[in-house]
């Protein structure tokens, strides 16, 4: 029991929580934005993988770290465009199209990576983002090292969650997105073009997903390897439901989730050996499923989610 308290009382845990949460925040926001407009994007896992690969590769070839992020975001938007053509223009099954995008984006990532970086004993590395201590705040005892000595993308992710919460609920654009997700026919009657809104939301959302992936290779680690996304994309999809499609709750959900994840990582070292490590690694996935089971009925799903919109059809 005291071991548990020791873990929670260590600043290292809380610093890790923010680090673990960052890709989840970005990915969840991306999925949320897309779903708010009525399009489920299961391409997330593959788009994250591609973002991680292309962001890393850009930096490896001499781009600076922020350019790497930008390249990842643009590439993500292109995959979003693909998903939007399939699901918005053609109105295909969002489930199947998204899985197709995931399979394509991840295999394409591995292909490009293998072409660009021949097989080597140790994977090549880049110099990732370094933590930036926020002047003043980072000197505070405990709170400082725990919360105010993160890498820049973490601060950006948290800021983005707040910006998105404002955008979705306090601006005309956000209203248009939500209307399109609830009732595209009504949106159209108000002079909003649901097609344009959905294209925009899916592409912007996919850009966020790719940035989530890029965080893994540009900040959390310093190299790319296949399967490194490890289902984080699917966890984000679950977190959107848990957050009831609200950006501020997505932020909280991701942090809560990251807390459990960071906690289990440290518990592993404490209990080391006594309990198989795989049991700990299962926790995030099982938690996601549990969160879905608890929240699915209560959550207010956007009413037009997964329904293609065809002008002139009922």
């Amino acid at each position, binding site marked *: 029991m005291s071991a548990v308290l020791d873990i929670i009382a260590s600043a290292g845990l809380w610093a890790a929580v923010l680090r673990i949460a960052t890709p989840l925040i970005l990915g969840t926001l991306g999925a949320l934005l897309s779903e708010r407009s009525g399009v489920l994007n299961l391409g997330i896992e593959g788009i994250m993988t591609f973002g991680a690969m292309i962001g890393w590769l850009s930096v490896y070839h001499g781009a600076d770290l922020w350019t790497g992020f930008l390249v990842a975001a643009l590439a993500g938007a292109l995959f979003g465009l693909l998903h939007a053509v399939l699901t918005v223009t053609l109105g295909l099954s969002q489930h199947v199209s998204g899985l*197709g995008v995931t399979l394509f984006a991840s295999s394409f990532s591995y292909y490009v990576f293998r072409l660009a970086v021949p097989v080597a004993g140790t994977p090549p590395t880049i110099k990732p983002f370094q933590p930036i201590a926020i002047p003043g705040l980072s000197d505070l005892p405990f709170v400082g090292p725990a919360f105010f000595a993160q890498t820049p993308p973490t601060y950006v992710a948290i800021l983005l969650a707040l910006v998105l919460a404002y955008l979705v609920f306090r601006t005309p654009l956000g209203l248009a997105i939500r209307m399109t997700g609830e009732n595209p026919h009504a949106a159209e009657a108000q002079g909003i073009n649901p097609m344009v809104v959905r294209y925009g939301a899916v592409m912007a959302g996919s850009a966020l997903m790719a940035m989530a992936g890029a965080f893994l290779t540009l900040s959390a680690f310093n190299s790319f390897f296949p399967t490194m996304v490890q289902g984080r994309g699917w966890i984000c999809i679950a977190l959107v439901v848990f957050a009831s499609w609200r950006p501020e709750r997505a932020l909280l959900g991701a942090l809560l989730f990251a807390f459990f994840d960071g906690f289990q990582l440290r518990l592993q070292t404490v209990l080391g050996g006594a309990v198989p490590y795989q049991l700990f690694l299962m926790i995030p996935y099982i938690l996601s499923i549990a969160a879905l*089971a608890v929240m699915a009925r209560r959550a207010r799903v956007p009413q037009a989610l997964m329904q293609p919109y065809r002008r002139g059809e009922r």
Partner: protein
Amino acid sequence: MRFERREHRPVALVVATPLIAVAAALAIAGILIAIAGAPALEAYWRILKGAYGSRLSTTETLTRATPLILTGLAAAVAFRARLWNIGGEGQLYLGAIMVAWASSHLIGSWPSALQIPALLILGALAGMVLLLVPLWLRLRFSVDEVVTTLLLNFVAVLFVSMLIDTVLKDPTAFGWPQSQSVADAAMLPKLLARSRLNLGLVIAIVLALVLAFVQSRTVFGMRARAAGLNPTGAVFAGVPLGRTLVIVACISGGLAGLAGAVEVMGVKGYVTTDLSPGYGYSGIVVAMLANLNPLGVVLTGLFTATMFVGADGMSRAMGIPSYIADVIVALSLLTMLVAVFFTQYRIRR
């Protein structure tokens, strides 16, 4: 420009759809190969040669097709009833580990004639159980099964990893996490000497035939289809929706579990965490390419196996990453979706 629903679908077009889709996928992948600085046509020729150029490679391709046909059937039967089972990978691993455990701890001394059928059933049961959990969550709490089945894949593989690291670990494997081997009597008979081709392929094809019959000629097949096309309408027409979905889940999870069982009993003899190079996920493509038709799955499973086996040989000869096979398979899924769309709609100005 807008899309207009076709009054009727020309039969020729429906038959040609997968071919057009695959051709389009190969064309796009050809560009990717060309960008890598290799002639695309030669690469495809080498893929064919790599898959069918010798007796060994041909049997290897057929061996590889076996789990793909089974996971393809698993996806096809579920998707037809709009049960989104994306958990084939996890179900495959549970089927595999179940077989390894049962044969090394429980019934390893049974004669082949009893042990093999028993193990196949146990493997299928393990896959079933893993799919019944997300189905229960969907029916009880209306949780989307796509995400839960996907997440359970990771749980299942970790579970298998834990078992082969601890209680089922093979002590003679030099510390590698590898399960104890199944008994010799548990291994499926070979179809051809000096090859890995085994009875699993026959099992897969027979099951495809059975499934084709069940889906088109039985009340259950009709109900499952109705449940997929329009669940509300199906309920009004007297289809027991929950029960139908449970049966569909049992078949689908069972087939995926069987894929794992067959892979262990036919090829590997034991379980590691790289038993499957994503057979569960590829099964989704196999099913979609076949337009969810069980007999078509046999052909598209073979196509997918051809790509995977052939790409290995091509990769060694030309220096193109063998991941191109995964790219082709994924692209085929996307082009197939578009192609199917255009059998249903036409463009009008």
